[in-house]
Each structure stands twice: as structure tokens, then as C-alpha cells.
């Protein structure tokens, strides 16, 4: 057992385990008295499974993992295609594969598989020799699964693929013309998608973000209730299982997208500081790993991993307080959900493996 555990990095694992415990308690509190009252137990089982997967992956040499990257990427794309063909439909979105009693959301894992493959491809040659075409090709590798995810439709999930593109400024620096070109592209894309791609409910979310007070009972309801929940937490919080917004169900989707509001209401600003501090610790640890990584691929993977976690943190925690538009996006370690928990642990397992090899010298 000790043999296996030596691959684990306690500096990263400790905040992760703490957050998972905090998250599961929050899911328990949020699920009380609703149809989700047993969800915390299910989540605990997923957590245990995720921990074992983490321990297993951390023990594998990253080089071996990278060697199967292409195959994994192709398998991931196929699973996304399978979702579109035979996926399970909940509330107008087809995002899930059903295997017996389990529902699996392949897009969660696909983020990491895409990161793995892109990092592997770019890392096979020295950073200086990476051409613009290589980067364009890598971007295509990111955009393809993104499009499949958008088709489900799942805008929030599609956006969480974007941090993989952080590798471009990592390699080439942040150049003014790139930034301008990027902004132009984004605004063109935004205009086009507003007219053509975005579904009415997505447009509503954007409108709600722009003016949350316009319709408090309708579209702005979720964000408004979430802000009230967070605010009424105050400095010390209402106490575990004592948040009125949570317990009286004013807070929507409180075990997944808005789980952080529950945490903020019941644990207050101090709890928020603790959670954000732990997230910061994990992200820094990943970026430190990126610095010490032995190969370029490993560095790229770690930077991408930090990007994915940071993006989820920013978008989810910013969304529930109304800083960012209401997108269906989960908070790692807090939100209930097997696919995402397992995927994050898997991804961070690879990071731990990288750190272990780097330390071994």
C-alpha cells in the first residue's frame, strides 16, 4: 500500500481531499429533504473510486500515458459521437451515456484526453521549432471535440475546453497582434453565434447577466437567489444545514452548478476564503509541477490542467455571484457528479505522476 501511496503528492492531495470533504458535506446539506437526499452517499462512493483511480494513474509513468494519447483521444471523440447518436436526453440536452445504473458524461473526461493528446503532439519537438501550423493543428484538435460538445448542446462544457489553448501563449508569448486578432475573432464569432448558433435559453442567460434585475421571477431568478444566499452567509455563515435559501429551496440546482452558493451561505465569507485558498494552493502546486516537469509534454499538460481548474473556478464561482453569465458549469471537487469528479482526479493523477518523476531525477 505504501508503495502505491509514495506516488501521491501530499501538497496537492491534502487540499483536494479537504475540498472533496467540504463539497460532499455541502451536497449533503443541499440535498436534505429533497429527492437528492441520498446524493452525498453516492458522491462519497464516486470520491472513493476517484481516489483509487488517482492512485493508479499517479503510479503510471507519464511517458507511457502519453504514448496512448492518440488512441485515448480517438476513443473520446467516438464516445462524444456516441452521445450525439444514442445519448440520454435530460431537459433538452443530450449529454449522457447510460450504462446500467450509471450515467456517464463523456465530455468531462474528453477535456483531459484532448489536453493529453495536444500536450503530447506539441511536446514531441523543441518549443522553438513549434510552428504556427502546429499550433493551428493543435487548435483544430481542441475545436473538434468542442463542436461535438456544443452540438449536445453544452456551452459551459465547450468553454471549459478553451484553457487548453493557453499552451499557445505559453509557447509563443502574448503578442499584441495575436491578442487583437483573437479579440476580432471572438467578437465576429460572438456576433455570428448570437445570430445563428446560440439557443434562446443561452441568449436569455446572456441577457440576464447584462441586467439581472430585469426579471427577478423569471430568467434572473437563479442568479438573484444565489446572490441572496451568498450574501446572507455574512462573515461566519448561517451554519451547516441552516441556510434558509438552501433549505427552503429558493436556491436552484444547488447540488451541482450552485453548490458554492450553499457553501457560501452556510459557511460565510471565512468558508469562501478557505475554499478559494485551497483552490489557489492546488493551482499553484500544478503550475509548480509544470516548472519542474522533465519533458515539454508534461509541462504543457500541467499548464493546461491548471488552466482547466482555474477556468472552472472563475466561471462557476464568478457565475453564482453574478460576475459572469449563468452557464451550466460545475465547480471541481464541490459539485456532485461522478464523471467530473473521476475526470479531475484522473487528470490530477497524471500531474502527480509528472511530479513524482521530476522529483526522482
Amino acid at each position: 500500500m505504501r508503495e502505491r501511496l509514495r506516488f501521491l503528492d501530499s501538497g496537492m492531495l491534502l487540499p483536494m481531499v479537504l475540498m472533496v470533504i467540504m463539497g460532499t458535506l455541502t451536497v449533503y446539506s443541499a440535498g436534505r429533504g429533497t429527492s437528492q437526499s441520498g446524493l452525498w452517499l453516492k458522491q462519497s462512493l464516486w470520491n472513493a473510486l476517484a481516489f483509487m483511480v488517482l492512485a493508479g494513474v499517479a503510479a503510471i509513468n507519464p511517458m507511457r500515458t502519453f504514448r496512448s494519447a492518440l488512441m485515448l483521444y480517438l476513443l473520446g471523440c467516438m464516445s462524444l459521437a456516441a452521445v450525439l447518436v444514442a445519448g440520454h436526453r435530460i431537459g433538452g440536452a443530450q449529454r449522457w451515456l447510460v450504462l446500467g445504473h450509471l450515467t456517464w458524461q463523456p465530455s468531462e473526461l474528453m477535456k483531459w484526453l484532448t489536453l493529453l493528446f495536444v500536450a503530447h503532439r506539441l511536446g514531441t519537438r523543441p518549443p522553438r521549432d513549434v510552428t504556427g501550423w502546429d499550433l493551428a493543428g493543435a487548435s483544430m484538435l481542441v475545436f473538434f471535440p468542442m463542436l461535438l460538445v456544443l452540438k449536445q448542446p453544452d456551452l459551459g462544457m465547450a468553454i471549459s475546453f478553451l484553457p487548453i489553448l493557453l499552451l499557445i501563449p505559453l509557447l509563443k508569448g502574448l503578442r499584441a497582434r495575436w491578442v487583437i486578432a483573437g479579440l476580432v475573432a471572438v467578437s465576429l464569432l460572438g456576433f455570428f453565434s448570437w445570430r445563428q448558433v446560440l439557443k434562446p435559453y443561452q441568449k436569455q442567460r446572456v441577457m440576464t447577466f447584462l441586467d439581472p434585475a430585469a426579471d427577478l421571477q423569471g430568467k434572473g431568478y437563479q442568479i438573484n437567489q444565489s446572490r441572496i444566499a451568498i450574501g446572507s452567509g455574512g462573515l461566519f455563515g448561517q451554519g451547516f444545514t441552516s441556510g434558509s435559501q438552501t433549505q427552503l429551496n429558493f436556491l436552484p440546482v444547488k447540488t451541482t452548478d450552485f453548490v458554492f452558493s450553499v457553501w457560501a451561505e452556510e459557511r460565510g465569507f471565512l468558508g469562501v476564503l478557505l475554499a478559494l485558498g485551497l483552490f489557489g494552493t492546488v493551482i499553484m502546486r500544478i503550475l509548480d509541477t509544470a516548472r519542474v516537469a522533465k519533458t515539454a509534454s508534461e509541462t504543457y499538460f500541467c499548464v493546461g490542467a491548471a488552466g482547466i481548474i482555474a477556468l472552472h473556478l472563475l466561471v462557476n464561482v464568478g457565475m453564482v455571484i453574478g460576475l459572469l453569465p449563468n452557464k451550466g458549469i460545475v465547480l471541481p471537487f464541490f459539485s456532485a457528479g461522478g464523471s467530473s469528479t473521476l475526470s479531475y482526479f484522473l487528470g490530477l493523477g497524471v500531474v502527480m505522476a509528472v511530479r513524482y518523476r521530476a522529483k526522482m531525477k
Partner: protein
Amino acid sequence: MELQQHSLLQKRIGIMKTVAWFMILWLVLAYARVQIWKGREMQKLALAQAVKTRTTPAPRGLIFDRNTNKLVDNRRALHLVIQFEDLPRDSGQIEALAAALQTDPDQLKRRVVAIRQAAGNRMLVLQDNLDDASLARAEVLRARFPFLSIEVAPRRVYLGEDLAGHALGYVGEVTPEELAKEPGRYQLGEIIGRTGFEAARNDRLKGVDGQRRILVDYLGREVATYGVQEAKPGRSVYLTLDAGLQTTLKEAFGQVQGAGVVLDLRDGGILALYSSPSYDPNVFLNRLTQDQVGKYWNNPDRPMLNRVTQGRYPPGSTFKLLVAIAALEKGIITPSTTFTCAGHKSFYGRDFRCDAVHGTLNLVQAIAQSCDIYFYELGARLDVDDIYNTAKKYGLTELTGVDLPHEVRSRVPSRAWKREVKKEKWYAGETISVSIGQGANSLTPIALARFYAMIATHGKLLTPHLLYGVRQENSNDIDLYQPPAPRETGLDSGIWATLDEGLYQVVHSGTARESAIPGLTMVGKTGTSQVTSFVDKAHYATLSKKLRDNALFAGYAPRENPQIAFAVVAENAGFGASSAAPIARKLCQYWFIDRMKKPLPPPGAKLPDAFRLDPDQAGEDEPPR
């Protein structure tokens, strides 16, 4: 990795770390702003939507008759409502709801707006008094429209049904007009007495609404209750009515239309008051169907009219006593003055007829035989203003002051009245008609009863009233109502003796002798008043029912020691002696004889429960299952 490249990557990763920290700092500041700077404000918002104040409608006071027979009860009924804070703003939702309820969407929208704009957090009642089937339907609706809720509220039950519909009246929601008329008196959605005693004594019957602070979840469902301020039920009220006498009166009328009222001569309390056709007040607690509107409101028989206080009838011969008083007081005749009746006589160039040839009569005989010629002679010697002033002196020209809404004033004509209302001068010939209670004469039955009560009490003008007493809040004792003191009219005792003798002779040997009760001296005067112009009685049979004469009988009993006075009008029933007097006879038979023999009959189905009068239990009957 090459060293240069490596250090560049290191640098860029360092930048990323800084960016990540700034990102986290930004989030920390955003949370600090909402949780610390705005924390109190958000806590208030959270409380505001989770803690609601709900009004608990207070049950109205129960109504009993003078013998504690329960006439009006409360039970708990379920209503489909929208609470104030749940009122939908989305017009699409309102339309969908209106479609589901099969009501007019525009009307529903107006009601929603009215409730929202009004103060006092009133709820909007969509359907009241749900039975089992509509409760099931309401629950289905609630699943579709989560802003609906089901509220328990007290509801009136009129146990006697149509026994005393006009006396009791019924309750209903306050109308926008009433709200606008007296701002601040009522709250929107308040249940108030609409008519009858319920309306007249609304302030005594209504309680004080309670308040309940409750914790609700996001669907407005009650999760917990704290801070209950109990509703204070209205105090139980006792009426002067006697359920047994009232039942007798009702049964005596049967299908006959008309009105009857019995007064207690001690204080003017109304022992029975019945207007036929009556109505069942329970019907008016619900929204009326089209059929019911036709049956009650657009019916030519006018069942909604309280004929006792709002129906005016030519008094016919029952008016002759007033004319006699006028003539005696004026000194035109003495009790022994005689006139001769030849069956008809000409006055002012017109031939006036009597229904028989009575020969020579004095005043007592003229009253007993109801001879018209005798009173024509008086009319020819009196000015109409003499009659009017006498009527005024003895209370016939004023409202009786009965505690029922919308009482109509009796009309005794005068020169001034004709000049003002008809814009014509008075013709002396009209006085002839007035002297036998025809012409422009028009009295309400209650005013007529009060006039006969005045005679029975040697000149006391009583105030008829239904309120007997109000039960004290914390005991079974009754605070008795003190009616206004009777007004002394100064009726001369000599005149009184003549009138009393005349009325005695009516029943003893005169027109109503068939209605005499052995062992009891009921006295009174018959009257037959023409609905149309004078028609020879030979043609009577050919007249349609509507045109037939109204029959009247007014008097008191027993003669030696009068206890009750009464007036009975039977519409289109023919002679007073044959139609109205028997009703009065049944009243006296019950009141003085049958009542003493047997226990009180209950009103409706409910047995009287005279000895268990717990105000808390009274309103707490089990709701329907």
C-alpha cells in the same frame, strides 16, 4: 529542453501564477462585497421571501334565536386562492390559469391587479367552498400553477335555510364600490354582511382577523409557523326572533306571497319576521349560476325584496283606526256618533260604494263591520293634512328604525307631498279614498305592526329590533341590548278604549270572527286593499291573480294584557278576513297555546343546544371530509 527556452517557459508559468492569484483575489473581493458589505441587506431579502405574514380570517359571530336555537353557524371551508405575494405578474400565466379555470381572463387580470394595488396582503380567492371533487381538481391545478394555494377559512351556514332569509341576510365579499365609498372601513376581500341582519349589525358580528408568521419554501408552501396571533372570532349574537314562531309564520304563508311580522310589546323585539317568497341565504355564499340569478334577482315575484321593511302596501281598512283617531282628536265625532250606510254614497259628485248595506252604525260597529261609508263620512269632514298630522304623531310617517338595512319609509299623503312629488294640488275627493286606506296611502308591514303595537301599549311607539343581546367574551352571559326607550304619543285613554273595543268586535263579532281562538282574545283589524282601481267584486273571479286584492290583518293579543302585536299581508289573496287573519290566528295559536304545550321545534335539522354554549367550540365543527 534548451536552457533559453526553458527559462522563457519558467517566466511565462510565473506570469500565469500571478494571473491566477489575481483572479482569486478578484473573486475574494467580489465575495467580500456581497457577504460583508451587503450581507445585512441580503439577509433581509432572504427573510423577506421566506417569512410571510398570512391573515387568518376571523369567524363571524354565531347567530342564535332568543331561546339559543342556533340559526347561523360557521364551518371551515377550503378555498382555492393565490396568496398576495404569489400573485402572478406574467399575463401569459394568468391567461393559462383563466383557461384552466374556465373564467374570463380579462376579469381575472383585473382582480389580480386590484388585489396587488390594495393594502393589507389580501389573498385572491379563485374558488370558494371546495367540495371533494373540486378539491381534487384544485390539487391538480396546483401542480401546474405552483402559486396557487388552498386556504382554510370560516364559512357561514344558515341552518334554517329559507326560514328567516330576509331577517338574517347573508354575507359576501366587499365590493369595489363599497370600498371606494367608505375608504378605510373595509379591507379588500373582506367578508361582510351583504343584507339583512348580517349587514345591519356587521360591526358586531365581525371578529378581528388574526395574523400568522410562517416560513415558506420557494413554492410558498408553509414549512414552519411562528408568531401566531389568533383571530378573534366575532361575538355570538342573539336575535329577538323565536324560531318556533318564525316556523309557524313561514308555514302559515306556504305558497302565498306577502309579509308578516310579530313584535314583542315589552320592548319592540321582533319575534318573527317573514317575507314570502323567502330565500335560502346559503345560495348566495357561492357565485350564482345564470339560473339562480334568474330565479332570485330577475323574478317578477321579487323574492329578494324584504316585504316586511321594503314592501309598501295600501293599508286598506287597517288604516281606518288612524282616521278614527284623527276624527276623535279633532272632535268631529264622539265614539257614539252614528252614520248610516246605504251601501253607497256620493261625495264630491262621485259615487263611493261600500261592500254591504250596514245601516246605522257607531264608531265601534263601523270598525267591527269595516264599513267604508262611515269612514267616507269622516274623510269628508277631515282635511288630508289632519290625517297626515295624526299619522305623523303616531309614527306612521317615519322609519321604524328597525335594524335591517334599506328600510323603506311608509307614505301617508298630504298636501305638501302631492305638491312636491306630483306637482299637483290636492283634491278633496282624494281624502275620501285616503280615509279607508286607499289612494296614495302606502305602509310597510313593519310600520303597520308598530302602529298596532302603539294602540296595544296605550300610545307607546316602540322601535322594532332584531338584536336581543351579545354574548360576553369570556362567559355565557349575555349583554342584553337596550332598545331605544319607547316614545309616548299621548294617546287619550278614552280614544284608546274605543279603538280597543272596535278591534275586539272585529274578531268577536265582525269581519274576522272566524279567526277567533277560544280562550284567547286576539284583536285586530282586517284590511283589503285594491291593487288596481276599484272593481266590482262580481268580477272577482275573472281577475288574474296579480290583480287580485291584497289581504291585511293587523292587531295584538291578548286583549286583556297585550304581549304581541302583528301585521300580516297576503298579496293577491283576496279578503283580509279570509286570507290574512287566519295567518295571524295561527301565530297566536302557536304563541299562546301550542308553544306552552310542547318543546321548541328546532330550526332546520339541527337540534337546539341550549346548554352547551362554548364560543370556541361553536366555530370548530369538523371540516367536510
